[in-house]
């Protein structure tokens, strides 16, 4: 039986996993830099420009700083859970990228390599499952800190993510009714041949986008770590690299949700108004990755742009928006989509 295992496939997937994880870590690193730079530019400042050319070594300096900071585990905390919190947050953040199709097949010395770690047929459900687990990292960390501000932050994070996940799921159901598949790869292939889903589901996309902001704890929904009310929110007691893990996992989450939005609604690695099949498969795959990354960068910029424009919601406003506006809207969108599909397919 052992011999039946395709070792080449194992190696191929292993390499892909390593590349994807390191790429998302690297991108998250430079997202922190981009965040500061974008913030500066939107506020007529210059931003970090001292470390290396154009300040490009800034994230390395920040990382070094975090490593060399004193590691404090409060005496009154539950030590095991305290360490587990950031680890869990990081783990779930990294796990999501497993089902995302980064590009088309690539021809590598006669071997076709799929640029996707696992094309599971429940792709998007897996993403949702892992993303919902992400809140455990925050909750466990905030509970283990034994600090009221942390606990408040954790509570806020949990209730916010639960509230917005509903609307997000319902808006996704409408999308799934159109595509008829849960596999992300399949969705991209459909969008390559037809329209991008954002054309068919503009309202669904809007709801999904707002919910994605809430899921990532980004402004205007960054109540779990509202500095001026909760000190640092759920990571008040954290220092050194454990704090770094929390901050980092947030940026990875932002990256992953950008990738998911690009894949679900903006054609993934599809190049707009261009038929990839005329190119050689390798070139098409590489251009596909470039196209996907461009879309992702645009989304990340949108995240930052919104952060430096819109002030934070009040908590009751947040709940009001989630339960009384987004969920009914998502339900309406779902029913309308179903009706239209029924009408045209009869």
């Amino acid at each position: 039986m052992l011999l039946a295992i395709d070792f080449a496939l194992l190696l191929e997937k292993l390499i892909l996993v390593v590349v994807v994880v390191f790429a998302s870590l690297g991108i998250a690193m430079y997202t922190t830099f981009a965040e500061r730079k974008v913030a500066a530019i939107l506020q007529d400042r210059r931003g970090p420009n001292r470390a290396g050319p154009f300040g490009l070594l800034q994230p390395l300096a920040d990382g070094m700083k975090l490593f060399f900071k004193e590691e404090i585990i409060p005496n009154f905390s539950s030590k095991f859970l305290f360490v587990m919190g950031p680890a869990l947050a990081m783990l779930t953040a990294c796990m999501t990228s497993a089902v995302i199709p980064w590009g088309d097949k690539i021809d590598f010395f006669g071997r076709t390599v799929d640029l996707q770690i696992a094309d599971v047929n429940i792709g998007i459900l897996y993403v949702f499952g892992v993303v919902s687990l992400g809140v455990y990292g925050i909750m466990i960390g905030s509970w283990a800190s034994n600090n009221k501000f942390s606990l408040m932050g954790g509570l806020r994070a949990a209730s916010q993510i639960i509230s917005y996940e509903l609307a997000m799921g319902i808006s996704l159901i409408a999308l799934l009714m159109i595509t008829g598949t849960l596999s992300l790869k399949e969705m991209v292939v459909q969008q390559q041949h037809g329209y991008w889903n954002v054309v068919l589901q503009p309202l669904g996309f809007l709801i999904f986008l707002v919910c994605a902001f809430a899921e990532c704890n980004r402004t205007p929904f960054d109540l779990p770590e509202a500095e001026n009310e909760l000190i640092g929110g759920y990571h008040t007691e954290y220092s050194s690299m454990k704090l770094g893990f929390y901050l980092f996992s947030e940026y990875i989450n932002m990256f992953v949700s950008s990738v998911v939005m690009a894949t679900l609604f903006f054609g993934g690695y599809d190049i707009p108004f261009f038929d990839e099949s005329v190119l050689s498969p390798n070139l098409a795959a590489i251009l596909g990755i470039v196209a996907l990354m461009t879309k992702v960068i645009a989304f990340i910029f949108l995240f930052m742009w919104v952060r430096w424009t819109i002030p934070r919601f009040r908590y009751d406003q947040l709940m009001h928006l989630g339960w009384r506006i987004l969920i009914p809207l998502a339900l309406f969108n779902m029913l309308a989509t179903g009706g239209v599909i029924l009408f045209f397919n009869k």
Partner: protein
Amino acid sequence: MQALTNKAKQVDRAPMSFIEKMYLPAIIKGMSITFSHIFKKKPTINYPEKTRPFSPVFRGMQILNRDAEGRENCTACGLCAVACPAEAITMEAAERQAGEENLYREEKYAAKYEINMLRCIFCGLCEEACPKDAIYLSETFTPADYQRKQFIYSKNDLLIPHPQENPEAYKKALGNRANKITVN
């Protein structure tokens, strides 16, 4: 009520319309405002590489002048110390010995000349009081330091470089401001 200026605006307290309740137009408007700031000119000056030019009447750190042959102008008359409103200047006079004619221009000179830069208010009255053009305020400011005692500048810190031994440093220290003062 009569408005004092025509800038006063009545606050609109009408309930929000449906469009306003959607928030999206307001959000898009706000985002276009922040986006327009990308193209604005940044007022920051990259400090150590670029410095803002000082005004021509800027009064910085004091310099003790020498004449064209490199002899110290100061005769330790004490007029600057008397003029100083912050009492930052102290000095001790000494008599020029034979053979020191190349060092000091006149028979009396300042053996010790100290300015406490923490007291100095850079008013420039010492410069105005000096009958020998021996002291003037340059275009450089006092650099930062770690200890208070480092701010008591002695003659070593204040004397201008020798015009013949080190002409470049002399010219640099002289700056533009000294051009207005007749140096002999």
